């Protein structure tokens, strides 16, 4: 009964979304306030309805109601509660309901918090949100309905794919969707602005916090996915340029560009049509990711069960959303430019180059992801584009970007002093070179270490120049510096933190790529293997029962010299339902490097097993870096100028010295 109510609520939400996407638009065109206000009421109502539908679905999973098809196919009564709940979005249908739920949360937030938005802009933005809702709710109801019943009711469910039964992966999809869907706000505001034919600082001030929230969530979501791949897939990899990973990374790249170009619109009213385009593209890329994962057009380990009918539906959805918005863009954008002019060397110029590099990087990743698909479809024949391509084109684009990240914040708006900025960064350059030399000495002057050492040098450059910029801004160490730290806009602190996070991330990437070592062997109990100065002794395997699995649990003693530093227990887990096996690695971390162990198959009758050991230098820095970037985003979000509904501050806008660089 409850599930039918959920089904009904979602159908009702579709009707509400239809109203939300039409009435306010007419109201805004005619200047009818009552009609415009329909947007707010319907956005809140839609949230209530969709939220209720989502809640009934969770209820069905938690109570293991196997008369619901989705629950039967994806859940099991013996599963821990957290995985019963995460099972809701562990499948195509349920994850779409989560998608529209988050969409409705954003819509309701605009309705509730956006009191001092220009009413017409708000009405139009909410109407565009309504259109997105119409598309996705219709998609759910007509092709992917999670509320269908099954008769007769099975006694037990099929269970969730064991690889998804993991705390990291339970929260990974919601974080990712929050990011994807969050970008829909920027999209809706962009389309609304195109309809109005006007973009100004107020518009940018509205778009930025939503973009920032989405970006923060996407950053953490991607990081979580990468972390999960690292510790569960059992080969010590954290990024493999898989099409579905790329599908989340592409919107991240354009979203990062959008975050920065929106600053220029807010501060200087320049780069308007470009920012609008980025807002459209970022959400389009999020939609494209959704399409790629669900339509079956490409093959990937992550893809949902594919169904061409769904593919056709999403493709039409995509064509309408992206094609429609870009048509509007082609009509209206040519009149949008104007605003502040700036010299090539200036804060605006730096942010523009940042944007060009990020979008080029995005284009190369997109091309690499889709190229096999395009050639196969048009010319036949298979090719695959792998890590060598991505690393080969991506890294050269990141190097100038990182150099620029150090310099840009030191340039003034309108016209910057490049020589002055560089001379203030002498210390950073010196430290960077020193870091390269020290790394080479430690690593032993081998040619193969140059790449890694250079990466460390880049990380130090970025960290040092970010700190120099911050400490100059607050005149650190001089009287009153604490007060200046407290008075500095949170967004400025956020930028420094996020850029530091990026620096630490780069160090992690460099270390993990350059100095990873691994060994794979068959070990009999008592045998010892050496790796990176550690002696790893295999002590044998015992069977351990788990909640819904049985584990073969190895004991591996890790010694450094004569000292026992850790006892690790990698496992192979055999799940009862569905009957599948997963590996569960065990990690000894020094907080600067990891020793990762996994257990393979049994060999012969003497208790021998295949074991794999990986020494992963600096990998923990990846996670610190991502966390710090996310934290930077959150700090920036608390800036009072970003606070939704805060009165417009008469901030100094065109002072020659940078006031707030986010």
């Amino acid at each position, binding site marked *: 009964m409850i599930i039918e109510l959920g089904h009904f609520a979602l159908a009702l939400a579709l009707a509400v979304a239809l109203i939300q996407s039409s009435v306010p638009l007419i109201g805004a065109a005619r200047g009818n306030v009552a009609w415009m206000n329909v947007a707010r009421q319907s956005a809140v109502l839609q949230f209530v309805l969709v939220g209720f539908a989502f809640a009934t679905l969770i209820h069905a999973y938690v109570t293991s109601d196997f008369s619901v098809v989705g629950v039967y196919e994806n859940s099991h009564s013996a599963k821990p509660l957290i995985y019963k709940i995460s099972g809701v979005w562990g499948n195509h249908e349920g994850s779409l309901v989560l998608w529209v739920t988050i969409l409705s949360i954003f819509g309701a937030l605009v309705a509730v918090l956006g009191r001092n938005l*220009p009413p017409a802009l708000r009405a139009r933005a909410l109407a565009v949100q309504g259109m997105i809702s119409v598309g996705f709710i219709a998609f759910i109801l007509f092709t992917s309905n999670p509320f269908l019943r099954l008769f007769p009711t099975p006694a037990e469910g099929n269970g969730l794919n064991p690889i998804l039964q993991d705390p990291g992966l339970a929260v990974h999809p919601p974080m990712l969707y929050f990011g994807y869907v969050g970008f829909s706000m920027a999209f809706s505001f962009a389309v609304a602005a195109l309809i109005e*034919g*006007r*973009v*100004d600082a*107020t518009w940018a001030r509205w778009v930025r916090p939503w973009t920032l929230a989405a970006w923060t969530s996407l950053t953490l979501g991607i990081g979580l996915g990468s972390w999960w791949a690292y510790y569960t897939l059992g080969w010590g990899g954290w990024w493999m340029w898989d099409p579905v990973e790329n599908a989340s990374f592409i919107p991240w790249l354009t979203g990062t560009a959008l975050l920065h170009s929106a600053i220029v619109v807010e501060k200087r*009213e320049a780069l*308007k*049509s470009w920012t609008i*385009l980025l807002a*459209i*593209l970022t959400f*389009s890329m999020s939609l494209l990711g959704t*399409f790629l994962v669900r*339509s*079956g*057009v*490409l*093959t990937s380990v992550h893809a949902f069960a*594919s169904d*061409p009918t769904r*593919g*056709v539906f999403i*493709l039409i959805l*995509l*064509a309408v959303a*992206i*094609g429609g918005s*870009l*048509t509007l*863009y*082609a009509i209206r*954008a*040519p*009149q*949008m*430019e*104007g*605003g502040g002019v700036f010299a090539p060397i200036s804060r605006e110029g730096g942010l523009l180059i940042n944007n060009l590099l990020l979008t080029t990087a995005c284009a190369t990743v997109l091309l690499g992801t*889709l190229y096999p*698909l*395009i050639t*196969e*479809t*048009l010319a036949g*024949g*298979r090719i695959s584009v792998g890590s060598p391509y991505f690393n080969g084109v991506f890294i050269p684009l990141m190097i100038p970007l990182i150099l620029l990240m150090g310099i840009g914040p030191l340039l003034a708006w309108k016209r910057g002093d490049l020589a002055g900025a560089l001379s203030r960064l002498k210390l950073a350059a010196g430290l960077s070179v020193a870091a390269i030399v020290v790394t080479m000495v430690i690593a032993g002057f081998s040619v193969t270490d140059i790449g890694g050492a250079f990466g460390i040098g880049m990380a130090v450059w970025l960290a040092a120049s970010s700190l120099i910029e911050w400490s100059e801004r607050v005149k650190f160490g001089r009287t009153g510096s604490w007060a200046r730290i407290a008075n500095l806009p949170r967004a400025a602190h956020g930028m420094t933190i996020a850029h530091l996070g990026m620096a630490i991330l780069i160090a992690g990437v460099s270390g993990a790529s350059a100095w990873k070592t691994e060994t*794979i*062997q068959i070990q009999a109990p008592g045998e010892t293997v050496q790796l990176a100065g550690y002696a790893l002794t295999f002590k044998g395997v015992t069977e351990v029962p788990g909640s819904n699995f049985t584990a073969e649990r190895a004991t591996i003693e890790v010694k450094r010299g004569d000292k026992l530093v850790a006892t690790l227990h990698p496992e192979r887990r055999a799940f009862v339902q569905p009957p599948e096996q997963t590996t569960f690695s065990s990690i000894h971390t020094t907080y600067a490097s990891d020793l990762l162990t996994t257990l*393979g*198959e049994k*060999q012969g009758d003497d208790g021998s097993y*295949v074991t794999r050991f990986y020494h992963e230098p600096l990998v923990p820095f990846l996670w610190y870096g991502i966390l710090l970037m996310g934290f930077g985003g959150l700090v920036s979000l608390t800036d009072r100028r970003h606070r939704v509904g805060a009165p417009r501050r008469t901030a100094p806008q065109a002072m020659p010295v940078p006031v707030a660089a986010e």
Partner: protein
Amino acid sequence: MTDTTAPDTKPRAKRWPYLIPLAAVLALGGVFAKRLSDISGGYDPKVIPTVLLNTPAPEFNLPPLPGLGDAFTSNDLKGKVSLINIWGSWCVACTVEHPFLMEIAKTGEIPIYGIAWRDTPERSLAWLEKYGNPFTKIGQDPHSQTIINLGVTAAPESFLIDKEGIIRYKVTGIITREVWRDTIQPLIAQLNK
């Protein structure tokens, strides 16, 4: 809030650059549409075809394992029907397949060449010591150069090569008795004619 865009006071901007994103998206949409119709028409993107089937094996020259004869080169494949087997001491399935390779080697019906993939000479030799050596010649490919040219996806994998050095059949995974009896042996007989 002042409107600084002032659209009518400025010379009209060029319109065509603003159409580029739309054009790109439409082209991509066309590709996706064709792809989806291919899939609906029964095309399965998950099946990996052997690109190299019925094409000459790539040129290679792989160093031998210490103490086990000469280098293994693509010239060795000329003149007789032969089998190339990709293995590694780290590869669990290879240990399962190995006894059958030993059996084939004893019958002498076809030379078996081995490529020791992503391995060290010490480990390869220790493994052969433990399980026996069915290979006429072994080449080492620690950095996967030849492996990539052959389009190998995982070990073990085996290629049947004809007298002209052309790849005629590929077994992904373990060679089972059934595959050997029903497919490979008849093919060898045919190629030897």
